[in-house]
């Protein structure tokens, strides 16, 4: 090689002229460009119903996290208790959702309660999902762990979840974090089992066997090859668990077990106002309605996001 170059005439820098890079040409691919999250976004926003639900969900979330900052609602505040004019006002221009027997605005109460309920549900879902997916991924790939975890799962899964949560939140005592602990301490097992089954199905597919033959490690295989396939499954799981945790929180507060007496929550509102179902129906039905709206919008948005995150719908 070295000799042949010497025989040829010398090539100088001046022989060349700089050409601008044609970006259009270099980027041109025969196949259409595919971006996963871009496609997810396109599929997700293609339905008007979804956009409406998303706005509804965002409106509720913003209201419940911003409105309490300004209203300063306090469950034990009895400033208006002697003001007879402020009691039992039906919904009107001043009190949008009316007032209760202590002259407290139901509008403030509902958003303060919604904040607690949504926070609990989101935090509990986050914890169960993170632990569930991590454990499920390990569970699905290791035979020894599988044998042990199956026994644990068989014991726990036979017991109604509500029963476990009631008993645990009773034992740990009242409190925000105690309640979250009671909900998540066994709650992640269901997610983990679900992920384990999915991982086991994917583990033995041809592309993974090929990948393994080429020397991919177990950890990389799980994280890079299997997990992306499970995005839609995990989102489905999240959209199911958000409303269910709200439901548990509401029921426990309804019983007076979960939260401290000073913490407002939708369950506590429903319990407090249940006796007024006939005399002042707005006091009872408005919290129930808001509760239903929160749960339904979270669930439906989650379901649609799960549908959109399944690559098969991107065609």
């Amino acid at each position, binding site marked *: 090689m070295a000799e042949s170059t010497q025989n040829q005439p010398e090539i100088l820098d001046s022989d060349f002229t700089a050409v601008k890079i044609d970006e259009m040409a270099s980027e041109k691919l025969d196949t259409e460009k595919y971006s996963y999250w871009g496609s997810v976004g396109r599929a997700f926003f293609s339905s008007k119903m979804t956009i409406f639900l998303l706005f509804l969900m965002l409106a509720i979330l913003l209201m419940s996290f911003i409105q309490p900052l300004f209203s300063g609602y306090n469950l034990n505040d009895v400033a208006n208790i002697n003001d007879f004019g402020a009691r039992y006002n039906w919904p009107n221009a001043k009190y949008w959702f009316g007032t209760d027997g202590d002259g407290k605005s139901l509008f403030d109460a509902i958003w303060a309660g919604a904040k607690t309920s949504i926070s609990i549900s989101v935090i509990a879902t986050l914890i169960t999902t993170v632990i569930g997916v991590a454990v499920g991924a390990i569970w699905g790939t290791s035979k020894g762990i*599988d044998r042990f975890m*199956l026994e644990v799962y*068989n*014991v*726990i899964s*036979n*017991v*109604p*979840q*509500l*029963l476990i949560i*009631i*008993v*645990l939140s*009773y*034992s*740990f*005592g009242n409190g925000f974090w105690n309640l979250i602990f009671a909900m998540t301490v066994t709650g992640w097992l269901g997610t983990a089992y679900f992920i384990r089954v999915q991982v086991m199905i994917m583990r033995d597919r041809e592309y993974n066997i090929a990948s393994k033959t080429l020397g991919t490690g177990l950890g990389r295989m799980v994280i890079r090859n299997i997990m992306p396939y499970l995005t839609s499954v995990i989102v489905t799981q999240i959209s*199911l668990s958000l*409303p269910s945790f*709200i*439901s548990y929180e*509401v*029921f426990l507060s*309804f*019983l*007076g*077990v979960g939260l401290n007496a000073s913490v407002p929550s939708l*369950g506590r509102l*429903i319990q407090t106002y*249940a006796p007024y*179902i006939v005399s002042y129906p707005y006091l*009872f039905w408005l919290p*129930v309605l808001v*509760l*239903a709206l929160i*749960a*339904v919008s*979270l*669930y*439906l948005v989650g*379901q649609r996001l799960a549908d959109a995150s399944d690559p098969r719908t991107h065609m």
Partner: protein
Amino acid sequence: MKKYLFFRVLRSILSIFLVTTLTYIVIYSMIPRRDVFKSDLMIQKLAATPDKLTDYKNNAFEKMNYLDYLDTKALIKDVEKDNPKVTVTAAHTASNKAQFEKWAKKNNFELKRYKQSKDYYAIRELPLWERLGRFYGNMFQIDTPWAIHDKNNPHLARYLKIENDPTVGWALVGSGTKYRYQIYFNGSFPFIHQNFIHLNLGTSYPTYAGESVMDVIGGRQGPTVTVQKKFKNGQTLNTASDVYTRQYQYRTSKSDTASEQFGDDYSDTEQNLRDPSMIGTSFRAGLIALVISYVVSIPVAILMARKKGKWFDRGGTFVVTLLIAVPSLAFIYTFRYLGSALFGLPDSFPTLGASVASSWVLPAVILGLLQVSGLIIWFRRFMIDQQKSDYVKFAKAKGLNEGEIYSKHIFKNASIPIVQGIPGSIIGLIGGATMTEEVFAMPGMGKMLPDSIIAHNNSIVIALVFIFTTVAVLSVLLGDLLMVIVDPRIKLSSSDSSKGEE
């Protein structure tokens, strides 16, 4: 199969044992024991007499298996029993004190003095494992002809024989046993009854104070009812006592009229009450709900699967999605309101009581409807999966019409997982019952759980967890067995342990 079944039952029992033990440990180690007196009115009444208060509290703790408690009298008796040579009295002398201390040290008791009288009493904290041991050790009480030993009745006959009893008819009658009728028959479900094994889950406190937990949960409730019964002495009388529960009455507390009526020492009876027990109430409502949920969801799911993609399927899917997302409490209240506003049904169970059928309608229907959305989703899925299978295409090719294919082919195959799920949905019913019974103030086990939690009645909480877990675990087992009966292709024993559970 037999071997598989054996290990499966063993594992189920282990499951129940583990869950109950864990609950026991969590509850007894985490809940401060003073909490049980939170809503006890006696505490305030006794506040003026600290000695009685100490006595009351320690007696309560002893009932709940927290500690062993000996008041002065019992302490003296125990000390004298241990070494018969010495005599001890309640007097505060040095020699008495020495004796007490010696005994307490030997038996690991802690010697204490009442605040006012300065008399001695002794307590011993029970470690958790010992409490657990007592709980399981006393769980099953088996009745034998050697169960009763009455000092005042040394010649009590001891036998078990089948005879035609004048009051209850043919029965296995025992003497020397705790219960008179060991096996008997009557018109109430399940028609054959036994008395030789009794479950003992501890003593209830502070609600239903002093009653045995099984009596609280399993005993009938409501007002007493009188029925006509023929007695051994030939009389036919109206009586409010439940003659089937006749137990041995010790001579010291004997009632002459009762023993004259029955003609023996078994005159201690329970009251004949009108309404079903807590278990019975929950069981009845649950059974009706189970039927309702399947009667509603199967036809809807079939129709949705047949009209897949059409408006009925889409509308149905929308409604089902809504129902899944709506929190159960909102669901229950809404349907309760609809039921009472539209059909005039009572919106609370005790309004008309258990003896009126319309009280049962709303709770049972709502309990059933809570399950419907989940069931429809699954059944629709099963039916649609079957639609694509080869045998359906073959049947179509042979010219069978849609109706025939669905009723004769698809339904039979799709019903395998449905049948397997029936007992499993009992787990869902238990969860739903807790809410429904609470909202309707229905005196069942589901309402009892939150009620006893709020009252800090630990022994009832543990008993309910035990019962619920047992029902849930056995129903999962039953579901797998049913599946084998419906579909002979499925073999539980050849599959590995994980598949058996699914």
